[in-house]
């Protein structure tokens, strides 16, 4: 447990150093840069790129979570049950669309820049969250629901105090999937002129500067791994808490 903690702290420190003090890494990346070429990406600060990258991801994921969970709640109510097969079809088909294709298709419709990237991330992010939220809300134990009804909770109270908390770990898994996909897709977003860390990688690819590619790749990779890890930790913690509640 402690070894894992130390490892995590080391990764965080490495990430921070890469983003805040890129100059420290000149000797590391120098062998990869072309002769006499720049070693460290200097056209924009890595910090501002990281911030706008994360900003895109957070905005898209939060919006997608709100919309998807609301839709899932509607669809799992008796009144919305009619739409459930249709919504399942949509999510199934939607998830076979490659994220890059969604991004590429958003450009003709919306133009270049951060806007289409955000829309593509949002639309694509809806699917895993919605799917997991529906699964989570629909798979609640009947006995628990009966008990909640039995102690006189209104529909609203049941939703807020019983259904949503119980479904939370599953919903969180959906949010994690969606956030990780969004992080990766946002990297590609720089090809449609959104300001993200992908810019560094693409610049490296275009100028044959492997140092840039490595730099960008490492930063994005570390962000993704740490985000994933943090979400998994949160999920296990929540699952344990609610597991204890329902089990004991």
């Amino acid at each position: 447990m402690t070894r894992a903690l130390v490892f995590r702290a080391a990764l965080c420190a490495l990430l921070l150093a890469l983003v805040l003090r890129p100059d420290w890494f000149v000797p590391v990346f120098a062998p990869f840069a072309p002769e006499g070429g720049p070693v460290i990406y200097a056209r924009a600060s890595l910090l501002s790129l990281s911030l706008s990258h994360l900003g895109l991801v957070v905005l898209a994921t939060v919006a997608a979570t709100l919309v998807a969970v609301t839709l899932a709640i509607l669809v799992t109510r008796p009144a919305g049950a009619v739409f459930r097969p249709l919504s399942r079809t949509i999510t199934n088909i939607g998830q076979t669309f490659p994220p890059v294709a969604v991004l590429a298709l958003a450009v003709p419709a919306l133009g270049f820049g951060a806007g289409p990237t955000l829309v593509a991330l949002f639309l694509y992010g809806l699917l895993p969250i919605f799917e997991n939220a529906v699964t989570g809300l629909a798979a609640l134990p009947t006995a628990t629901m009966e008990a909640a009804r039995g102690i006189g909770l209104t529909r609203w109270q049941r939703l807020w105090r019983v259904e949503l908390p119980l479904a939370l770990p599953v919903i969180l898994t959906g949010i994690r999937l969606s956030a990780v996909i969004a992080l990766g897709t946002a990297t590609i977003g720089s090809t449609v002129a959104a300001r993200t860390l992908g810019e560094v990688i693409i610049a490296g690819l275009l100028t044959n500067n492997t140092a840039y590619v490595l730099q960008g790749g490492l930063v994005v990779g570390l962000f993704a791994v740490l985000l994933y890890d943090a979400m998994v930790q949160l999920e296990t913690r929540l699952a344990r808490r609610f597991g204890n509640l329902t089990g004991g």
Partner: protein
Amino acid sequence: MTLAANRIVAGDGVASWNLAGPGVTWPGLAALATALLLGLHPRRPWLRLAGAALGLAGLVWLLAGGASALLDGAGEYARVSPGAGFWCLLIVLALLMADALAVLSPRPLIKASLLIVAASLLAVLLGSGALVDLSIMQEFASRKDAFADATLRHLGLSFGSLIAAAALGLPLGMLCHRREALRRATLPVLSFLQTIPSLAMFGIMIPLLGWVGDNVPGAQAFGIAGIGFAPAFLALVLYSLLPVVANTVAGLQGTPPATREAARGMGMTARQLLLRVELPIGLPIILTGIRIVLVQNIGLAVIAGLIGGGGFGTFVFQGLNQTATDLILLGALPTVAMALTAAIVMDILVALTRPLPESAT
């Protein structure tokens, strides 16, 4: 529909009823209206299916008739592309069709024949030259050889990496199934690999493979180099391992303990147990893993276009650089079509291997 003076500038919208003479527009619009009416019919899924098909036909009719009528005397570089309304209608009709099909839930073989019918209709449509006037088809015509090349490359990347991943992942999954410790060590590593954004993964592969290409004798003869096919292929294989291994483990563990006991009681060896009992029972889940990999790799192979790996991604990124919308579409639409087809075919396979409910008990 939009009509533009050349392929870069934004076009002017032309409403569907102004497209061409009444002889062309009326049948198309009528088909669309009937389709939407039929499509709203709540009870009869067959009717909805027929409505959607009729609507699609009407849409294509309008597209083909309208494009040639608009181009008449519009100048040599003029381009016609379908407008936003076309895409919206296309999506609505496709959803109607998918929904009707989901309600009908046809048997796997019928589904397969429907897929073949749809694919051949599409092929006839594209081959007949009815849509030749559309901008996207003009982009295609000027890149015919490159397109065929890209298609082969794309298929090679996604299927090749799938085969490599299956060759590695299936035995690994079986080992993990046997050995708890190995499973605990492997699965988290693989899921971390899966987390790394694709562009970063492709980027990290470049120096790695470049080093291998420079330092291992004979590696370059195999085409292993920093950019191109090899890093894309390797990255795709790494991404594919998690679904394959995880689903193999899940599939093999899915055998009910009673069944396993019975097999052991019959005197089966561990090997026989694996081959004759656990694998057949787990097959649908293993195939589901392969479906995930296939769909995912077809999508990810687009990004290979950025590192010179070829495939449809080449068109997408060329199009993005030149702001030529139709070139983007030329890369994106076949990718989507390929992914959808792969998903449907794999779904059919999964359904075929799933034992019937009666025999499962």
